């Protein structure tokens, strides 16, 4: 599904990613952990096509296609979704309108008929029910007046509606209290499927108690220094990121 080879990325005048190699097969959930400044969010944003970051070397192959050659909106049309670390507010544009535009853009790209307002509303209300979200959310402007936790829940709701093939969650758990964390994790788990790949970027192991990953990779100074299964995350929590500096195993 996703193959990243020797990815090197610069941002803000600095080298951030110094050669990332990562393979994510369809249906897998991969966690990317690392200390602050290690490049976790940069990796997520490079996959999504954030214009502030420059890919200086390497490749990303997505479903057989060269992802780096596509503009961000085309990557989205191809089924790539990113849940933002800092979701923005869009006053004046309600959630339903926003989502309908996105859903139909993807459908058009796939040659499927677009949904009309009524078809869309019944589709999206079903999704709201699965995530136990209050449907009145749909008529509110995107993220306006939302708390941090509500914004993160809204990102997962968008993921549920868009049904991406590759979902990249950028520090979806940061700043959340334990109840909001569980709600967000429930939403992500409801979306797990053999046809969907998920990359979860997180600083803390706690989220991974609820969203159990197939693989865990640890980033340090722009490189993956260790990969393993979910127990790697538990070891990290116990020993701290400093442990890896003492025993790095470059991949």
């Amino acid at each position, binding site marked *: 599904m996703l193959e990243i080879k020797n990815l090197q990325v610069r941002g803000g005048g600095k080298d951030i990613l110094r050669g990332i190699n990562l393979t994510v097969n369809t249906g897998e959930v991969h966690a990317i952990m690392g200390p*602050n400044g290690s490049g976790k969010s940069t990796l997520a944003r490079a996959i999504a096509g954030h214009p502030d970051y420059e890919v200086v070397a390497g490749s990303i192959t997505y479903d057989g296609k060269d992802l780096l050659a596509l503009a961000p909106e085309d990557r989205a049309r191809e089924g790539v979704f990113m849940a933002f*670390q*800092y979701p923005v*507010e869009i006053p004046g544009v309600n959630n339903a309108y926003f989502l309908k535009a996105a859903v139909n853009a993807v459908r058009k790209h796939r040659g499927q008929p677009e949904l009309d307002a009524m078809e869309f509303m019944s589709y999206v209300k079903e999704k709201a029910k699965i995530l136990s979200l209050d449907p009145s959310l749909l008529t509110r402007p995107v993220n306006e007046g939302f*708390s*941090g936790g509500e914004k993160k829940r809204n990102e997962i709701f968008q993921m549920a509606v868009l049904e991406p093939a590759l979902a990249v969650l950028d*520090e979806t758990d*940061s*700043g*959340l*209290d*334990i109840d909001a964390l569980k709600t967000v994790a429930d939403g992500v788990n409801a979306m797990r499927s053999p046809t969907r790949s998920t990359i979860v970027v997180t*600083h*803390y192991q*706690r989220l991974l108690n609820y969203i159990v990953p197939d693989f865990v990779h640890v980033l340090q100074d722009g490189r993956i220094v260790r990969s393993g299964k979910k127990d790697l995350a538990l070891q990290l*929590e116990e020993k701290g990121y400093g442990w890896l500096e003492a025993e790095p195993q470059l991949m």
Partner: protein
Amino acid sequence: MSAPVARYVADYHSAKTSSQPQWLTALRENALASFERLGFPTTKLEQWRFTSVAPITEKTFPLATDGLGAVNAGLTDSLSGGAAVAVCVNGRFAPSLSSLSGLPKGVQVLSLEQALISSPALVEPYLAKLAASDAHAFTALNTAFLRDGIVIVVAPHAVVETPLEVVFASVAAGKPTVSHPRLLVVAGEASQAQILERYVGRGATFSNAVTEVWLGAGAVLDHYKVQEEPAEAFHIASMYLHGARNGTFSSHNVTFGGSLVRNDVVAVLDGEGIDCTLNGLYVGRDKQLIDNHTTIDHAMPHCGSHEIYKGILGEQSRAVFNGKIVVRPDAQKTDAKQTNKALLLSDDARPGI
């Protein structure tokens, strides 16, 4: 120095304290020097132009001594259910009125005086590091008289479901006295807790309180302050918050009592992605003056702050509200919202500016 300042300085020198670490003695001496230099604020100072502290400075408030005997039954009863309550009377920890045996794992609630003896290393990195003694006379005064108070330390990753209640009772057996309530909260990385800070009392006492809160990275802290001192009391309080990245902080400041009340809340958002809510409710009657000043410093990008202050003012009460929001260079994507509304129940009530 003016006569009021001199009285407090004299009380400093005659106050007896148990032996304290050298670093604390130095802190206190510096704070006293700041207080002498600054003097009490007058209405010529921008931050105090609507609030004269003459009702406090023209009176003599001797330093309160142990007031346990003057606490009437029920005064310090818990509001939160009583599972974790730390009570201070006139600024001194009162174990007989507190209930700390069933504290959940991951949190420590200690008397500051005790912590300075048994585990000073727990307190030294944090105590008086946020409270601005060099700029705020009342804070300097509190720090100069630092002796006891409450310390709450929440361990990293601990999720504390029980609300932690701290009650500061200011009581005067006879002549009105001054006390300096002190609260230090250290919320470890990714921890979660709720704290209720209450002020109750008896008599026309003067409470000069300072609260310092260190919010760890990714920590979630809900803070409530409820001030229900008698209508004749004086209450000056300063709260200082330091937020680290991705922290979430909410504070709800409720004022009912006090003839002259001043609340200063200073929040420094020193990391990306912090969400800070400062809410306030004030109810004024008779000739009460309630002054709320907030400062939120967006020092880093991607932080959000929200303030809603609401007041209900009747009879001849007055309120002052001043909310300052500072956005530093490169604090991109700052989102700050602020609202202050007052409901006036009489023609003589005057809302804040």
